């Protein structure tokens, strides 16, 4: 594809640092080819092809490519008789099952993305349980109401089709919520019975054309295909694809597709763009819907989110910034579920908007890349406030570096979050020894190599399609000093008696997880403070001396 959009211009861009040219049959294809490869490995490559070697083979090759001394990660010393765990954990070579998943299901991501549109009701076309489970999961993180409507299919509808329930469900949602938009996502149930949601919605619009209908956007999100991030990306793409159809007068706003970040992150990004003197259209914008004020009267729908009018008039934006290195490199979901383009590419191709593809702006260099894009778009220099934040962060890097220099981290979660976190960790001197995501086909190894190149003695081990047990199996040979990721890694941090620095989603075991700031120079500062303090706290707690001066 020869699009004239601005390429990823972070550190090491185009360095081709990791070719993914892993030795040994299945290894390379496992790390690279994504969807379906782990399965084919498990099923087809039984002879002498050990999938579990794949992630380890990758980095060795990567180290060669980067001109660094090859480090055999297999031989990484488990100092002190294996810091993590007392008893050796049973290993799980080439397991087909998943234990303690490091991912959530596809429709959950779509529901969250739809929640970020003003006046929207996220709607699941499937059985009742899916909506309830997802609501519970989301509520436990954000501590905010999260209504998800469901077409509540029963046995009859599973046999005869879910069309009538879908239509009735939307009518009921209209009656109770008066929504501006209904975001319909499918589930494994409705995808498997072959419901033609697009067709049902066309019928619906014909049958009830006399009513004041909300916009209805739909997206295919079978949970047997991808993770919540594919669902998120597919929903964002669907919003743009199905709503931003007309060319409008240029309004000069900056369109930002931020990826899955926290309400605090979204507020910070809006401030950044505002400080550049531009208005922003942020899609989706969860900041107010999932972090709202106390209310006197309950509103069926929370305030805030991206206004529908702003989505419809995206063609008038001065440029679009799309965050996520992994997103930029991979199709959003596989064929048939979401199409192959990202929301940013849709805007670029449809309206010729300049597209700036950057990473999630976590850490110094990834934020610099976002700032560079904003400087290019607005023609203005970095505003003083943020320049000072950057300066203070660099100052903090120096002040704090000794506490964390050479500490070994395991990072896990959504691919783009992991890339950002690894980038930051690398800048503050922490060595990421393992970077893992539950997603497949995320091209994680390439991005990790890009953000660590020249700054780490060895490129980290990278695993895609990982569950927490695989992460743990791998991590135990790597003697990590800390974990960085969502709260689902806690049991391993506890087992190994090392700190878990919480970031991303979900954070179910701490208060205020959705208020954590990750992005921008201020986010880098906040993350660094928490990481340094986690290490200090551990040192303090383990010390026989009751230091109160560290």
């Amino acid at each position: 594809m020869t699009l004239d959009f601005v390429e990823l211009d972070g550190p090491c861009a185009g360095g081709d640092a990791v070719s993914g040219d892993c030795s040994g049959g299945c290894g390379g294809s496992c790390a690279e080819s994504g969807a379906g490869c782990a399965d084919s490995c498990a099923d087809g490559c039984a002879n002498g092809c050990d999938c579990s070697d794949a992630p380890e083979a990758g980095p060795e090759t990567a180290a060669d490519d980067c001109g660094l001394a090859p480090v055999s990660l297999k031989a990484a010393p488990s100092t002190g008789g294996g810091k993590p765990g007392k008893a050796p954990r049973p290993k799980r070579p080439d397991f087909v099952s998943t234990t303690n998943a490091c991912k959530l299901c596809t429709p959950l991501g779509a529901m969250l993305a739809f929640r970020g549109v003003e006046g929207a009701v996220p709607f699941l076309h499937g059985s009742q349980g899916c909506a309830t489970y997802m609501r519970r999961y989301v509520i436990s993180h954000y501590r905010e109401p999260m209504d998800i409507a469901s077409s509540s299919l029963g046995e009859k509808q599973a046999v005869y089709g879910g069309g009538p329930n879908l239509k009735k469900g939307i009518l009921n949602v209209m009656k109770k919520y008066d929504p501006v938009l209904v975001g319909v996502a499918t589930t494994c149930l409705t995808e498997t019975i072959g419901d033609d949601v697009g067709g049902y919605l066309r019928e619906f619009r014909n049958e009830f054309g006399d009513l004041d209908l909300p916009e209805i956007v739909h997206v295919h999100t079978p949970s047997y295909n991808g993770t919540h991030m594919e669902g998120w990306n597919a929903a964002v793409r669907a919003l743009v694809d199905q709503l931003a159809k007309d060319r409008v007068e240029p309004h000069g706003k900056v369109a930002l597709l931020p990826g899955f970040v926290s309400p605090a992150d979204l507020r910070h990004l809006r401030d950044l763009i505002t400080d550049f003197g531009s208005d922003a259209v942020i899609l989706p914008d969860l900041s107010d819907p999932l972090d709202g004020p106390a209310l006197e009267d309950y509103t069926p729908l929370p305030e805030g989110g991206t206004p529908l009018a702003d989505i419809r008039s995206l063609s008038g934006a001065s440029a679009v910034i799309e965050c996520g290195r992994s997103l930029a490199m991979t199709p959003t979901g596989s064929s048939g579920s979401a199409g192959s383009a990202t929301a940013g590419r849709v805007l670029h191709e449809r309206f010729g908007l300049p597209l700036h593809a950057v990473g999630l702006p976590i850490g110094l260099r990834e934020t610099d890349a976002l700032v560079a894009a904003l400087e290019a778009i607005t023609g203005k220099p970095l505003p003083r406030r943020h320049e000072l934040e950057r300066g203070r962060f660099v100052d903090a890097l120096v002040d704090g570096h000794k506490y964390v220099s050479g500490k070994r981290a395991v990072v896990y979660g959504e691919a783009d979050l992991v890339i950002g976190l690894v980038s930051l960790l690398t800048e503050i001197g922490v060595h990421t020894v393992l970077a893992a995501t539950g997603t497949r086909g995320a091209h994680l190894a390439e991005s990790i190599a890009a953000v660590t190149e020249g700054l780490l003695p060895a490129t980290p081990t990278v695993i895609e399609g990982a569950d927490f047990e695989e992460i743990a199996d791998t991590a135990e040979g790597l003697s990590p000093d800390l974990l960085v990721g969502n709260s689902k890694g806690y049991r391993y941090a506890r087992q190994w008696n090392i700190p878990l620095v919480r970031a991303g989603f979900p954070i179910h075991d701490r208060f205020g997880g959705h208020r954590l700031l990750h992005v921008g120079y201020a986010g880098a500062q906040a993350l660094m403070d928490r990481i340094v303090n986690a290490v200090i706290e551990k040192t303090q707690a383990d010390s026989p001396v009751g230091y109160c001066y560290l």
Partner: protein
Amino acid sequence: MTTATAPNSTATADCRDADLLDERKKQVHRAGQGPIDMACNRESLAGAVSQRACVFCGSRVVLYPIADALHLVHGPIGCAAYTWDIRGALSSGPELHRLSFSTDLQEKDVIFGGEKKLAAALDELIDLHQPKAAFVYSTCIVGLIGDDLGAVCRKMSEKKGIPVIPVQSEGFKGNKREGYLAACKAMFQLVGTAPTDSVSPLSVNILGDFNLAGEIWIVRGYLERMGIQVVANITGDGRVDDIRRCHGAALNLVQCSGSTMDLAKMMKEKYGTPHLRVSYLGIEDMADSLYAVAEHFESVDPGIVERTRDLVREELAALMPRLRDIRRDLSGKRAAIYVGGSFKAFSLIKAFRHIGMNVVLVGSQTGTQEEYQELETVCDPGTVIIDDANPLELSHYVRELDVDVFVGGVKERPIAHKLGVGFCDHNHERKIALAGFEGMYNFAREVHASVMSPVWRFVPRRSKRAAAPSGADA
């Protein structure tokens, strides 16, 4: 629409009863206003945001606490991910139940069938974890692609020498109730498969407590003081071998009628085991339950009634003074209850009376017509009774009835909190034991801690009242 203000202002929840969706009207009733005729156990209405879950959820919560079994969810990842470590379900020993196992079905498996992957998953996981039994949960998709769960389980059972039991819990085939039944059927396959040599004639099984925060240990403590042997916990702190020999117990104690009554009925039919419905929540219900057990065994052990009376007296002597202060603070405050099964609501209404509070709203996800009729008889006139409520309805009544504390699960919490109403978690996520006499004190303290917090002075809904000179809300 270009406005940036709330686009939904017309729907701001100023709903009266009349604004209930027509289909929902038969699922709301005000106590004392005409005969109660609730249309329950309906399928949830499409488009209404039900607080209900699915068949799988019902099975999963019931079987989950069996700590030495492998719980393998056969389906795409969501169903396993959302139920990983979902409840406290404390174990005094193994903790295999706290791991989340899934076949993580992919598109290819959906097209070509998931049986091969299921067999391989069972093979590897049983070898690795050496469980006493394995439960294999069917999810929506398995019901559609037609995997023969039974055949795979039979084969693996023979190969591994442990019971491998299919749980027919396809999500779309009903609501939680069907899931409870599927779980009971699965457990019933274990019952009667081990010898009952050492079982005392004074013995019970505890059904329908899930030991979320150690409740079953409290209840076992009381029973042991009465001289009664507990054969099996079903299922809190549960063990496969105990369930296998639980048909040797002389009596089944059934709490949470919805989830395990089916198993009690099956055992009654096949083994003649009688059962008692009990509740461990609140003072009367806990005491009544223990007395009922004592009466049941009186013919075998005449001293048991006296022992039980002593136990209750002792516990109450310790409890009542501790409740007095709490009651003084909470007197006249108003509570709302929304729970999974309606049976729990009975106990909660009584428990609230002990701390001087009035229950003004009570509802459940899965109550039956009979249960709601019975519920009305213990409610004050005007109390709103609601079946399968949604957030809009709940928030409407919370405001209309001026509720001080809401008792519910995690899905209800943000509704209460958003409106500036106190909350007590009586569901999966709680970490404080609420059963027995000491549980009553914990419950009272929980409610007190929420209701008496100074934060309500600052929330919009209450700020006016708190600003009033009397300061009655202190």
